[in-house]
């Protein structure tokens, strides 16, 4: 009987494709929007991800994220270094600055000063030149998204001179980094050099990056740093989460994407519900005949379930493949750099598809159940 059910469905090509389209479209919209949402808010943590060696971030107690920070006195570094379980601790400076390009444009940038000796604080990989290039005087390394923001297409940024707080800076390398939420240009330089670029106030040490000794637990070291120094310490994961949370709380992004996802769901319910109820209505006589001949209600439930499962699984697969192709297709575009589909998102859209089909299948089934077998003689 299931074979008959499937043939009933696929035999009506228009409605079959309509159902597939509805499910695929819903899946695509929900999966794709959730992926973009997830990847976008993850950028709130890009500062953390771009300094991969740091296991613990130490900061002033009022600092909230890599971008929303308050500088500490320089003595904080030694205080952190003296805490038991701290294997190494290096200074890390993050500060906004205005830069004047050689063409005279003014651009807002983030200056990141990394430890002179170890270069800890740089992104993991470089696209142009090696990390050692920072040893050369007046050198800055620009992040790859920064290039597209600051320079015209095809212009080679290497060797470009910039003016930072009346200081000379020359771009000598490009870092492979995750763009920040605002896609603002980031310029990496040595800590000692960064101090020159950032207008002088007394305190300019924004973070201390920490690695822990073998055999230590992250949580223990965090507690010890906080108790001993009075500063705030967060593990890499917690601090990344704080950055994401900041975006969620301070932008309209969750609402906007939430609305789109809801629309995807509603459109799915509308298209699938309408098409499926049309399909059931067109076949109600046949279902009635089957009931009269002697097909039990339970068999009919299985038939309709098989029909829903078929369009559901094909439509869902098409939608997910569509999303993957979309993300893959746009992975070269800086706006979508680093976007990926976490496994939870297809599960969410699968749940949505199941709800859509359960709702519409139930409605269709109800009208089949209600059909009296005697109706076939009318």
């Amino acid at each position, binding site marked *: *009987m299931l*074979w*008959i059910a499937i*043939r*009933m469905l*696929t*035999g*009506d090509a228009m409605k079959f494709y309509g159902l597939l389209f509805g499910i695929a479209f819903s899946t695509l919209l929900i999966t794709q929007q959730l992926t973009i949402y997830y990847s976008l808010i993850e950028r709130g943590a890009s500062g953390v991800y771009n300094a991969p060696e740091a296991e613990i971030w130490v900061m002033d107690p009022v600092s909230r994220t890599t971008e929303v920070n308050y500088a500490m006195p320089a003595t904080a570094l030694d205080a952190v270094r003296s805490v038991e379980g701290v294997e190494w601790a290096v200074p890390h400076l993050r500060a906004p600055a205005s830069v004047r390009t050689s063409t005279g444009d003014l651009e807002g940038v983030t200056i990141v000063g990394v430890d002179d000796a170890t270069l800890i604080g740089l992104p993991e990989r470089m696209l142009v030149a090696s990390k050692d290039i920072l040893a050369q005087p007046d050198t800055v390394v620009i992040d790859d998204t920064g290039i597209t923001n600051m320079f015209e297409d095809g212009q080679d940024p290497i060797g470009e001179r910039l003016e930072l707080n009346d200081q000379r800076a020359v771009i000598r390398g490009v870092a492979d980094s995750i763009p920040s939420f605002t896609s603002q240009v980031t310029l990496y330089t040595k800590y000692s050099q960064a101090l020159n670029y950032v207008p002088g106030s007394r305190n300019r040490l924004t973070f201390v990056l920490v690695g822990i000794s073998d055999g230590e637990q992250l949580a223990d070291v965090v507690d010890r740093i906080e108790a001993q120094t009075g500063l705030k310490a967060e593990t890499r994961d917690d601090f990344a989460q704080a950055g994401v949370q900041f975006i969620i709380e301070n932008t309209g992004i969750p609402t906007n994407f939430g609305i789109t996802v809801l629309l995807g769901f509603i459109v799915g319910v509308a298209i699938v519900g309408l098409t499926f109820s049309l399909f059931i209505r067109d*076949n109600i*006589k*046949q279902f*009635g*005949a*089957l*009931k*009269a*001949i*002697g*097909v*039990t*209600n339970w*068999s009919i439930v299985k038939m309709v379930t098989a029909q829903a499962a078929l369009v559901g699984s094909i439509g869902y697969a098409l939608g997910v493949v569509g999303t993957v192709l979309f993300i893959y297709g746009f992975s070269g575009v800086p706006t979508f750099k680093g976007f990926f589909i976490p496994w939870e998102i297809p599960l969410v859209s699968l749940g949505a598809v199941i709800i859509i089909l359960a709702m519409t299948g139930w409605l269709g089934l109800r009208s089949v159940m209600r059909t*009296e*077998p*005697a109706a*076939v*003689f*009318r």
Partner: protein
Amino acid sequence: MTSPDATETAICARGITRDFKAGQSVIRVLHGIDTDIRSGEMTYVVGESGSGKTTLISIMCGILWPTDGEVKVFGTDIYSLSDTELVNFRLQNIGFIFQQYNLIPSIDAASNAAVPLIAQGMPLEPARAKATELLEKLNIGDQANKLPNQLSGGQQQRVAIARALVHEPRLVVCDEPTAALDANSGRRVMDLLREVAVAPGRACIIVTHDNRIFDLADRILVLEDGRITHDGTDMPDDH
């Protein structure tokens, strides 16, 4: 399975009453029908539109509950069965021919004719083979692989007949089987039905308006306003 006794009682109907609600009021469509339908005979139920023919045979074949009365089909009191038992009883014992055929448009003639066997749990291929045999007997064996919409009305009706007979039911019920056919096709279909559906131990009830085929009946019941007013081998003279 079947008894050779041609006069065995197939259906024993006693005191069948059926009411329908029409808005506020209740209309009595059948007024205590008592009759027996015998195996080995082709019984016609005739009467004016609205006289209750469809209602009567629906009750006799277990798809419509009577308001009152008892129906025994081959000895089984069908309305004392549970829902599932009744569905299964129909599947094993009754073949249906509907006026509008109600074939499934997206499966071919052989599969349509095989539906009762498939519903009984027979695998697709043997079920189709058995159905194709029957289609050959009905002279449309060469149409077995065509979809219903590729067949003429008469051919579709034969597929519907094959579907009604493929599982060798003991009772076959037809409501207006020739209404959609021209005179010649209608007569051919009825001849065919006589040939295949009437056998010892097997009963066939046909509801019809079609006076062109009255001469093919073994027995004619005339229904007027929910009562049987004539029961004989021919039509009464006043019709």
